[in-house]
């Protein structure tokens, strides 16, 4: 499943060429960091968790059997690391959970977002995404941004297929609710428009 190129560098690392591992770090640092950032919501902590992910991956490299993509295996370590870090500091990562998912009209949320410039919209969406619970947030990120398949997400999260699907659906609806709840009043405040 792993690309030949990745496997070449993995083999070289396992044979004692430590520097070959830097290729893998360079290749996957963006992917690991972006997931960590989405889960940790803080640059410094995301950087720390990402570095720890690569160090753990290096130490456990002989346990990687190539049954999944190397990137999926790395994602799994990142996801676990983030959850552990969040668990250690539960209070800090308490989410502003929205229990009620009331908005069903997608067009309403779309109208709000289309009123914004692309760059501004991206920033707003990022803020809204960060308001989701970390599990839902990471699943949405992996599915839509990193374009991981459901099977890959199941491997990373160790959740059942049904569970991933439910969380994905809830996450989408919750995101829609957050956009409507938080962005619309802000727009009215700033621009006096709806």
């Amino acid at each position: 499943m792993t690309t030949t190129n990745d496997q070449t560098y993995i083999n070289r690392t396992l044979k004692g060429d430590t520097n070959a591992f830097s290729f893998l770090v360079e290749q996957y640092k963006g992917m690991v960091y972006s997931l960590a950032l989405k889960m940790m919501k803080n640059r410094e902590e995301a950087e720390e968790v990402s570095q720890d992910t690569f160090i753990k991956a290096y130490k456990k490299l002989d346990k990687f059997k190539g049954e999944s993509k190397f990137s999926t295996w790395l994602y799994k370590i990142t996801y676990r690391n983030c959850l552990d870090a969040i668990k250690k500091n539960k209070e800090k990562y308490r989410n502003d959970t929205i229990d009620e998912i009331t908005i069903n009209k997608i067009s309403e949320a779309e109208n709000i977002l289309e009123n914004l410039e692309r760059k501004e919209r991206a920033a707003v969406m990022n803020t809204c995404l960060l308001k989701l619970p970390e599990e839902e947030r990471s699943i949405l990120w992996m599915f839509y941004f990193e374009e991981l398949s459901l099977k890959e997400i199941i491997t990373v999260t160790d959740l059942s297929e049904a569970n991933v699907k439910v969380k994905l659906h809830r996450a989408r609806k919750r995101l829609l609710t957050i956009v409507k709840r938080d962005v619309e009043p802000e727009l009215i405040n700033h621009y006096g428009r709806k």
Partner: protein
Amino acid sequence: MGENKHIEELNAFAKKYINEIEKESPSIDFTKNVMHSIMEYEKSEIYTPNSLISKRTWILLAGILMVGIFYVSKGKSLGTIGFSKINWDISSKIRMPNLFENISVSNIMIYACFFFTVLIFAQIYFLKKRFETNLKS
């Protein structure tokens, strides 16, 4: 049908707007920092020097030596503890030309050589054990 359509629309909404989010990158020194930590880890894994013979063994050896010295100082010769019963004269058992015929060696010297040999063999045992442990890890 209605529910499916709603799910599809939700899917399209999430896909469109999440993809617009800009991907952020780690610091410039990220790879350098990771590789530095890995090198540090490798260094610590190569060899951790520690004493070949443990403190406990040294105390035990010192104890045996002290007992020996005490025994001798009390006026009892080593002969009484059985050394005289050992036939050191191996020349009668091995028919070889005696190359050291003209060299006379005192009993003390023989005892010293004996203990020295024992010490070397003991060290071989400890070294073998150490190398085996190091290679396994």
